[in-house]
């Protein structure tokens, strides 16, 4: 019970930490909105040529763009967030202090990341989506149940995103400098998340592969639920199961790596 309170406090700290930077948040909202417009027009041109591409009509494709811009920060699609801190702490040896704390390292970072995501979902998510809805005919659902199902998928998406970055950050125990891995992970993730082009619209085998990788949990699943491409209890549960499955696998992999790292690797600067 007491440890729950610790993690809640860490999550609240993560929320407040990001809430401090008001002009940075405003700048980010502006940038996501501008990019939303640019990408929306390119999608309009593409769906003009290929109506119904990937099973989306034009309104759904446009909605996908704005959901992507709304979720980009909450799901850390451009920056590795906590992982940058963590890699630095592994490099300079401070991680040893973290490991001695009477809290679980993975849960500690997860709590902080959930707090950050909660702030960025509302601060940086709502404005671009609203502007997009005013400027383009979007296919947003009126049913509050669908929005709740969408939020559920977003929470799972944040956990999967966290789990991926946690595994990447742990590589620093072996490589000493994890920034290259984070960069490469960001590159792969950006592509396979479907922020640039929906995974449904990716051609051939590339699309088939992209749709089963963990990054499909990030944007494609929540977007499909909101767009009604996955509707009804059974299909929504399938989407949740896909996300939860990857979350469990990746969190477990993180635990395994962490324990072998702390057993075998000599900490620097200690």
């Amino acid at each position, binding site marked *: 019970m007491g440890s729950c309170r610790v993690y809640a406090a860490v999550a609240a700290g993560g929320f407040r930490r990001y809430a401090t930077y008001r002009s940075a948040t405003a700048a980010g909202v502006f940038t996501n909105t501008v990019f939303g417009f640019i990408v929306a027009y390119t999608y309009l041109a593409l769906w003009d040529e290929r109506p119904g591409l990937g099973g989306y009509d034009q309104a759904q494709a446009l909605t996908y763009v704005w959901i992507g811009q709304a979720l980009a920060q909450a799901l850390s699609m451009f920056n590795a967030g906590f992982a940058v801190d963590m890699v630095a702490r592994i490099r300079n040896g401070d991680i040893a202090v973290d490991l001695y704390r009477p809290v679980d390292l993975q849960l500690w970072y997860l709590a902080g990341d959930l707090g950050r995501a909660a702030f960025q979902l509302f601060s940086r998510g709502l404005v671009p989506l609203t502007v997009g809805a005013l400027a383009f005919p979007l296919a947003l659902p009126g049913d509050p149940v669908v929005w709740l199902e969408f939020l559920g998928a977003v929470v799972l998406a944040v956990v999967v995103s966290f789990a991926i970055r946690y595994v990447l950050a742990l590589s620093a125990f072996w490589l000493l400098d994890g920034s290259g891995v984070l*960069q490469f992970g960001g590159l792969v993730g950006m592509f396979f998340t479907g922020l640039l082009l929906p995974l449904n619209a990716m051609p051939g085998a590339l699309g088939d592969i992209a749709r089963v990788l963990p990054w499909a949990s990030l944007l494609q699943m929540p977007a499909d639920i909101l767009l009604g491409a996955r509707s009804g209890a059974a299909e929504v549960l399938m989407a949740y199961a896909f996300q939860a499955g990857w979350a469990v696998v990746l969190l477990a992999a993180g635990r395994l790596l962490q324990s072998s790292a702390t057993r075998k690797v000599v900490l620097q600067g200690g």
Partner: protein
Amino acid sequence: MWIRSTLVYRTSFAAAVLTNFLVTALDFVVIWMMFSQATSLGGYSFAETAFLYGTASVSFGITALLLGSVDDLGLRVRDGSLDAFLVRPAPVLVQVAADRFGLRRLGRFLQGALVLGWSLTRLDLDWTLVKLLLLPVMLLSGAAIFGAVYVAGAAFQFWAQDAAEAQSAFTFGGLTLLQYPPTVFARDFVIGVTFVVPLAFVNWLPALYVLGRPYPIGLPWWLAFTPPLVAAGSCVLAGLAWRAGVRSYRSTGS
């Protein structure tokens, strides 16, 4: 010094250039995937779009190489490290640009040049001497216009210190915009990037002349030759903004 220190670690440098190359190639992969699903976008073929992509990316690549570090200005204002630059006998802007000079950014330039070269082999154009000469003029003027946007954005950071991200809307956003045909975008949008922020002069106007295409908002054809003038004007305005920024700068005092 930054170049020499980077080149000491050859493998690391090669990896950084390669990563930069791949990151920037992602935009092109998206365009390629779009064309794998459709034969044209906004009435433009793949080769024509690749030409727009290549010209915009090469110009931006030059700018990012020379001025990419200017993005960090807000950080320098916040942590006070800008103070050291102010007392040295060299222009502050040059120092900010040269410090942490990222030679790895060569990746974007190379990738853009590759796409541009490929598009030139695929395009069926009536080359004239004028068009041939316009090509390098367009690339260099484009780099200067992007440079002005970079410097103006950095100047803005003197006032809004942690708003570096707003700059990306104009730099990276502008780049993405110019990589697609202008016919893709709404009329008001095209007007905005022609007359308000003159990004259209980076490549759209001269490139459409080379491709033999009309500009979607009906402008006189000779505007294709004005990018050097627009570049000069933008640089003057950006320089004034920068000076105003430096004048208003107050150290953090810590």
